[in-house]
């Protein structure tokens, strides 16, 4: 067997051995499952459209900080529970979606037999206007005296009634 062939085989074998190690490490890398981050819409316009579309369809549970410039001067800064077992509870409004209901993962967990597991949610639209939406609850969500059928903007200080609980937005 010629010297050259043996040299080629020797180096080839080392290369194949290392290739196996590298492939194995790649398998480990792809095995780090758990979360997947999908980038959507890199441009400002695209991002806005996406956001608007999501709000109309199925807005997510939580939302990061809205841009500071979007805050209206007259915007409410906190949500206050004014009646019910949670009276006195306040939640700072920082652009996040607030969910209400008996489910443990709600932002405000209602201990109220007349509330549904996922009763309603309160979220800002893209102009910073706060919206309340009934999530198909059994007994309904009332803004003042009217039962909500569509997502509705919340005026400052207007009472929102869910079962025995009343909440309102304040400055």
């Amino acid at each position, binding site marked *: *067997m010629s010297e050259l*062939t*043996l*040299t080629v*085989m*020797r*180096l*080839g*074998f*080392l290369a*194949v*051995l*290392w290739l*196996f*190690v590298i*492939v*194995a*490490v790649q*398998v*480990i890398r792809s*095995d780090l*499952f*758990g*979360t*997947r*981050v*999908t*980038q*959507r*819409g*890199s*441009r*400002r316009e*695209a*991002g*806005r459209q*996406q*956001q608007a579309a*999501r709000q109309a369809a199925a807005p*997510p*549970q*939580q*939302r*990061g*900080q*809205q*841009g500071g410039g979007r805050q209206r001067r007259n915007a409410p800064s906190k949500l206050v529970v004014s009646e019910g077992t949670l009276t006195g509870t306040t939640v700072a409004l920082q652009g996040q979606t607030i969910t209400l*209901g*008996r*489910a*443990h993962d709600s932002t405000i967990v209602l201990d109220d*037999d*007349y*509330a*549904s*597991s996922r009763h309603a949610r309160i979220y800002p639209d893209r102009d910073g206007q706060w919206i309340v939406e009934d999530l198909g*609850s*059994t*007994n309904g969500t009332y803004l003042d005296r009217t039962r909500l059928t569509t997502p509705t903007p919340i005026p400052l200080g207007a009472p929102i009634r869910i079962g025995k609980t009343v909440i309102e937005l304040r400055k």
Partner: protein
Amino acid sequence: MSSTTNSPTHHTSTIGAIGAPSRRNTELALLLFAVVIPVFAYANVGLAINDQVPAGLLGYGIGLGLLAGIGHLAVRKFAPYADPLMLPLATLLNGLGLVVIWRLDQSEKLQASKTFVEAAPRQLLYSAMGVALLVAVLIFLKDHRVLQRYTYISMAAALFLLVMPLIPGLSAPTYGAKIWIKIPGLGTLQPGEFAKIALAVFFAGYLMVKRDALALASRRFMGLYLPRGRDLGPILVVWVMSILILVFETDLGTSLLFFGMFVIMLYVATERTSWIVFGLLMSAVGAVGVASFESHIQTRVSAWLDPMREYTLSRTPNGDGLVHSEQAMQALWAFGSGGTLGTGLGQGNSDLIGFAANSDFILATFGEELGLAGVMAILLLYGLIVERGVRTALAARDPFGKLLAVGLSGAFALQVFVVAGGVMGLIPLTGMTLPFVAYGGSSVIANWALIGILLRISDTARRPAPAPAPNPDAEMTQVVRP
């Protein structure tokens, strides 16, 4: 469940959970790769030594392929979510070991020695027995937590296995270390390899129960948490046991392996650095103490400190009554002559090491014929097995499984360290086998069983969690009746 974040530049990303895939096809592809590499090596050795492709190539390839295939089918059937890397890594190491053992069988110098036997066919048989044991573990061990029930039984079993080489009828002392037993008609067995697994089961079961007492009841002194005197009991018992192994079986490796495994598991169970400090101190005291009167260990230490002197003494009869061996120096020369890229498979002179060239010193052959690049790759393969074991421990949901996986992979890592370090002259040489690679039935069989248990734990750990219990909030909402 998904959440959205809006960064100031309006990049929108969705973060969602991905279920654990079973990865069996990845495993199959890697296994094919892991069978092809040793076949390549086998052909390479044949071409280098005899100028022709060896006649046994097809049989060898089919044999290894069958082993890998049976292992894979068993995993696919009985542990579908198990780690995809462990089986290919173990198969590759086993295959490379077979090739190098066969390559040393071809050496005329070794064939001339009195004790020569064709080692490669036997090793293939042992590998088959090992894979059979792996399959048996996967079939009969449906849930690793069953082992927890046998905590103290496995302690007794481990002690019995460790003491076996000292029982007069069974003992088969070889080359100074009493770690073998004779089974009439079958050959010799190294019960210590199996004791490793039994001890890991015992330590995991014991520490799971006792870890709170060991972790919390302690005083702080100079930045270290000092355990209470009575909590020192178990570590003292294990220490005394490993010292006794050292004294009566004169085997530094086994002793170091068991004590090190206990300290690793103790550290993982309690998160107290002080145990590591205690463990290092105690093993240093023990090793120095025993070495002061045990001549077999003194020989090993002096061979480690000055291998060249040992080599000269073995060449010139001097009548000091001690057995001198040129192995350590020959192994270092083998590494040295390998250089960075090695001499090529089948073209080295590592057979100069003598009778243990295919067992304790097999890494020296890799060092000479594959060079630094090859040895690094081999050590990385071991590192990956250990990494997958620790990863399994991280993913396991039950404390017993976590401790058992850490213990088994820790023992595996320690064994590789003790052998590789010994052959390379980092620590005194001890008679242990390089897992999967070195010639030796007990070692190969026990390590396949070890991989089987790790596969079982990782299958349980990576299996998608069962559907959550019905939400207690889902009870009926009362309806307001106007």
